[in-house]
């Protein structure tokens, strides 16, 4: 979690407004790690993420006068990182992953619409994932292997907690499309975790 306790936010704000070199250094030192964490949910390529982080930090410094001092600075910074990540991906994403990769994770139904195989139940507590690095690695890999079109809505919804309406507006999608993509992304992640946890779909 973000550790904002180690820095005096007001001092940082005043320093950034005055464009003090020390404040800029403090910004980099205290906020690079959490911002890097946010950005790496959108791209797993560290050099791409560094480029996005660089641009995010520059925007934070340049836009600091627009920040309302009565609110918390972390959500404001995070929003810049999220928007920057989305813009960057939109501009730079290259070959799309094939659609069949998503289809493989869809549940299989019989002709009359019943689930075709036994579904084993499992439930994982978020705390368990934090403590189990192999499991958190599986989760991270599952999200990262989603095609961009599915990964971004899922990250915005399930990680960042944006509403369907906010995501649709941010990504210029119809709400129904946003929902379908999030749903299919969840089915994909569920499938990967199921394979890991009990070796079955």
């Amino acid at each position, binding site marked *: 979690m973000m550790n904002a306790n180690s820095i005096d936010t007001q001092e940082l704000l005043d320093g950034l407004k005055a464009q003090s070199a020390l404040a800029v250094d403090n910004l980099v030192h205290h906020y690079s790690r959490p911002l*890097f964490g946010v950005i790496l949910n959108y791209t797993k390529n560290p050099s791409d993420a560094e480029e996005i982080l660089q641009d995010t930090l520059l925007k934070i410094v340049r836009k600091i006068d627009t920040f309302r001092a009565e609110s918390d600075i972390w959500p404001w910074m995070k929003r810049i990182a999220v928007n920057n990540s989305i813009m960057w991906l939109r501009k730079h994403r290259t070959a799309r992953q094939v659609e069949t990769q998503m289809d493989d994770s869809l549940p299989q139904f019989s002709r*009359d619409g019943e689930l075709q195989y036994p579904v084993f139940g499992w439930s994982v507590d978020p705390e368990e994932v934090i403590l189990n690095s192999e499991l958190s690695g599986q989760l991270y890999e599952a999200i990262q292997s989603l095609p961009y079109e599915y990964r971004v809505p899922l990250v915005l919804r399930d990680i960042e907690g944006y509403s369907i309406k906010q995501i649709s507006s941010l990504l210029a999608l119809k709400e129904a499309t946003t929902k379908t993509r999030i749903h299919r992304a969840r089915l994909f992640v569920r499938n990967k975790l199921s394979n890991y946890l009990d070796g079955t779909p």
Partner: protein
Amino acid sequence: MKNDLMKCRDCVDLLLDYLDGNLDEKTQVDLDEHFSACPPCVNFLETYKSSSEVTTVLRDQEVEVPAAMEERLRSFLREQLSAAEPK
């Protein structure tokens, strides 16, 4: 006996709206009825819900930034700011 009106396929399609509480009353009742008669769909719901919930662990995660990268970021910002200095 499984509900004749609602099939597992319909049930899975409705999970997102179900968890968000966005279903109309009738669909909600039909779905609950289906769950009460269909253990595989209950398991599917549990695992779908759990998959969505565990994803929140990636929120506000700090990721190690190597010292060399931190230095590159500092240098970049200093350069950008000094270039923009003469107002």
